């Protein structure tokens, strides 16, 4: 599905200082029953956001009014582990987030994010903690994620760190392209390759 181009995002950010957040928490399995991409924003972190009776948990950061509308989430280490469900990345995007910052991501989740228009930004543990401390101390704190220059900056202090992304994926994100566009363009080359496979 097409996603909006990503260039520079400057925004406040939700803090989620928990390690090993797995995709079963991001979107529990019982909400994977749809056959279309609907309602994933509603069930984003469902069991951490809501009590079993459906009332919101007031102290969960994603429910706090002060952070509402943020386009960035800063998470703990090993964010997105577990299940390969792309629904987790959809729910991040559909909730209105464009970027997740962490000191380490699980591989499949990271790949899924890049495929659906969410930028996973990996920074050092020290810098991630600094960002978390800043946004928890003052929820109005803004973070600037600059994809063309591959930097993430704490706007108030100007402290900045570069991040990695390969130039192919970067180009996709800047232009809203995806891999299928690329692969369809080299269809004949793939067909010739398929001929050579033994099984």
């Amino acid at each position, binding site marked *: *599905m097409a996603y909006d181009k990503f260039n520079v995002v400057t925004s406040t950010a939700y803090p989620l*200082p*928990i*390690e*090993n957040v*797995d995709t*079963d*928490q991001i979107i*529990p*399995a*019982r909400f*994977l*029953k*749809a*056959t*279309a*991409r609907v309602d994933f924003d509603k069930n984003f972190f469902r*069991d951490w956001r809501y009590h*079993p009776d459906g009332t919101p948990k007031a102290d969960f950061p994603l429910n706090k009014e002060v952070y509402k509308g943020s386009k960035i989430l800063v998470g*703990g*280490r*090993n964010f997105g*582990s*577990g*299940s*390969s*469900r*792309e*629904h987790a*990345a959809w729910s991040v995007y559909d909730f209105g987030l464009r970027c997740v910052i962490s000191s*380490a*991501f*699980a*591989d*499949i989740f990271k*790949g*899924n994010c890049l*495929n*659906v228009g969410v930028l996973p930004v990996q920074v050092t543990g020290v810098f991630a903690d600094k960002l978390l401390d800043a946004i928890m101390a003052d929820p109005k704190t803004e973070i600037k994620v600059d994809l063309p220059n591959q930097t993430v900056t704490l706007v108030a202090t100007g402290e900045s760190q570069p991040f990695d992304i*390969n*130039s*192919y*994926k970067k180009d996709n994100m800047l232009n809203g392209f*995806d*891999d*299928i566009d*690329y*692969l*369809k363009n*080299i*269809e004949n*080359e*793939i067909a010739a*390759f*398929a001929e050579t*496979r*033994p*099984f």
Partner: protein
Amino acid sequence: MAKTLFDKVWDSHVVRSVKDGPDVFFIDRHFIHEVTSPVAFLGIESRGNTVVYPERTFATADHNTPTINQHLPVADPLSANQLNALENNAKKHGISHWGLGDKNNGIVHVVGPENGITLPGATIVCGDSHTSTHGAFGAIAFGIGTSEVEMVLSTQCIMQPKPKSLRINVNGTLGLGVTPKDVALYIISKLSTSGATGYFAEYAGNVFTEMSMEGRMTVCNLSIEMGARGGMIAPDEKTYEYLKGRSQTPKGAAWDKAMKYWETLYTEEDAAFDAEINFDAAAIEPMITYGTNPGMGMGVTQSIPTAANAEGGAATYKKSLGYMSFNEGEAMIGKPIDFVFLGSCTNGRIEDFRAFCSIVAGRQKADNVTAWLVPGSHKVVDQIKAEGLDKIIESAGFVLREPGCSACLAMNDDKIPAGKLSVSTSNRNFEGRQGPGSRTLLASPLVAAASAVEGVVTDPRTLLAS
């Protein structure tokens, strides 16, 4: 340059490498199921694409299926809708489909190998992270997201950077009651759930060469739980023996030709890995987890570590123990349990049912335990019956259910109720994984069986010895 097994298989599937980007990676075999494929088919339609090689994709219904009364219409309308979508999409695009009740139906990672779809040297993907299971045959197999499912359907390729390589050697003799599941949980407890992120693992050493194909599948299955994209084991006589004559394996001259290729699939002497790690088989005990990720595991006789020693920070650790209602320093042995789940793509094969029966034979299920015994496929059910294991199961007070993923992810009705404690042979103990509020202890079929008859967490060695 000397090549690893992984290099050989990976490099032979690269259509082209994108400069400063991923490889265009050709996929030989693609499994789909009802949960992660519907949106991929919507994508194909909205772009006006087709399925380019339908004969390379195989559909089976498993994640959402009931495990009792499969002959009746599926009661949950949302599940039924997904199952219908899978069937209709398969039909429309000429993909083989093993729906509910089909004799080939079962959990995708159980039926793939069983039917000889999984082959050494193949590349295999599925929208399910435990696709790593198929690495047991010397295949490169890993889980993908729905966008990639669409990519494979419409182009037979995905775009992936080549992961780094890791070799895990386990040598020595495994002790009494120590199963492949324990070997895997032990490795994960040492590496943590993110210890192998960015890597693709090869398992080597006498412990794996001596292991059955079922055991190798259990180990490779759990590769993802240490963060690795997948894990593989070099094919050998056991692999060929297992595959020979299965419905989809090459036959006759095609088999001989395949064998020639398969015999080249090993890591060369001087090949270098990006990382290598060694374990001593004798140090491994029957394992159990106590927290909310598979890395939080220990020998079943040990006590829960204190937060001071916790990997991943004390706050996260305390949150996890809080969810489990456990305390630092507590023993797991003797804790009363409510449920036992035998099944999943990790431990739902014939060998797992044999192991379970080796303990429950002549004993009785404890009254406080609800047990769900869910074979991985209809073929496993048939084998259970052929070996008379169903009789042992019944006389011990257990009931055999019908195949499916079941309580592994609790998308169907098999949900562990909130607060209840379950000893499960599946692969994830995440918060709510087996139902909202459920508490999961991951363990082997032997630990599950011993705990099921005693009603408390039990060291299976105490029952095996007596």
